[in-house]
């Protein structure tokens, strides 16, 4: 338990707040996805700073690398989905998705 750990956690909470706010308020699909990216930055910061504070930096590092691999896979799939949505609706507004039927 070190004071520095709390500082890292505080900044990670800030990143989480930014990401959550984007997810709650924005309408552009790409912007929403940037919000998810910001949240994932907060998660990797928490993982690594906890390992740093508890003297388990190697384990934390391997977990962060796993997390980054998963994140890239998620990004590739989601951006492909966004392009498909754009081709179907010709818009990036998330509200148009609510009007889709069938």
């Amino acid at each position, binding site marked *: 338990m070190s004071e520095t750990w*709390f500082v890292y956690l505080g900044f990670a*909470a800030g990143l989480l707040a930014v990401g959550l*706010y984007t997810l709650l*308020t924005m309408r552009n699909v790409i912007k929403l996805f940037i919000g998810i990216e910001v949240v994932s*930055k907060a998660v990797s910061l928490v993982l690594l700073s906890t390992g740093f504070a508890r003297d388990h930096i190697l384990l934390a590092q391997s977990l*962060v690398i796993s997390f980054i691999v998963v994140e890239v*896979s998620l990004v590739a799939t989601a951006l492909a989905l966004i392009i498909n949505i754009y081709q179907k609706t010709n818009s990036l507004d998330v509200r148009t998705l609510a009007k889709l039927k069938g």
Partner: protein
Amino acid sequence: MTGNIALLSGVVLFSILAVLAKDLIKSAISLAVASLLLGILFFLMGAPYAAVFEISVVAGLITVLFMLTIALTKTDGEVRESKAVKIVFPLFFIAFIVIDVLVMKNLLPKIQVLAGAAETGTFGEVLWKQRTFDLVGQLAVILAGVFAVLALFRKRNKDE
């Protein structure tokens, strides 16, 4: 420590810029800069492999993917965001931080420290020997991503 706090502030500031910027290209670049600063911070914390991954993959590859998507989805009329978004943001941000600090102040000291000696060995030993099962999961995730992208972009048959 001062340098680390400066880097952390930079990460948060560029993330805010990425979220609030009107132009999507500027958003993507701000996100890349935030990742770059986070990578430097990882390096200073003694995690060079995570730093390399963060800088090359998150700041490099993901930004390229974002740029590609933005270029492929160029619309004439931009999506209009609500005007209240920028006004409410500081209030939400400060309220979230205050609530978080108040809750975590009581919660964090109650978390028990896991027993275990300090780590020995190298990063390679930890990754390949202790976390071997994670690597199988990673392979599965990468394959799932590849198949998902292939399925989303497959060509239609002529008779459809």
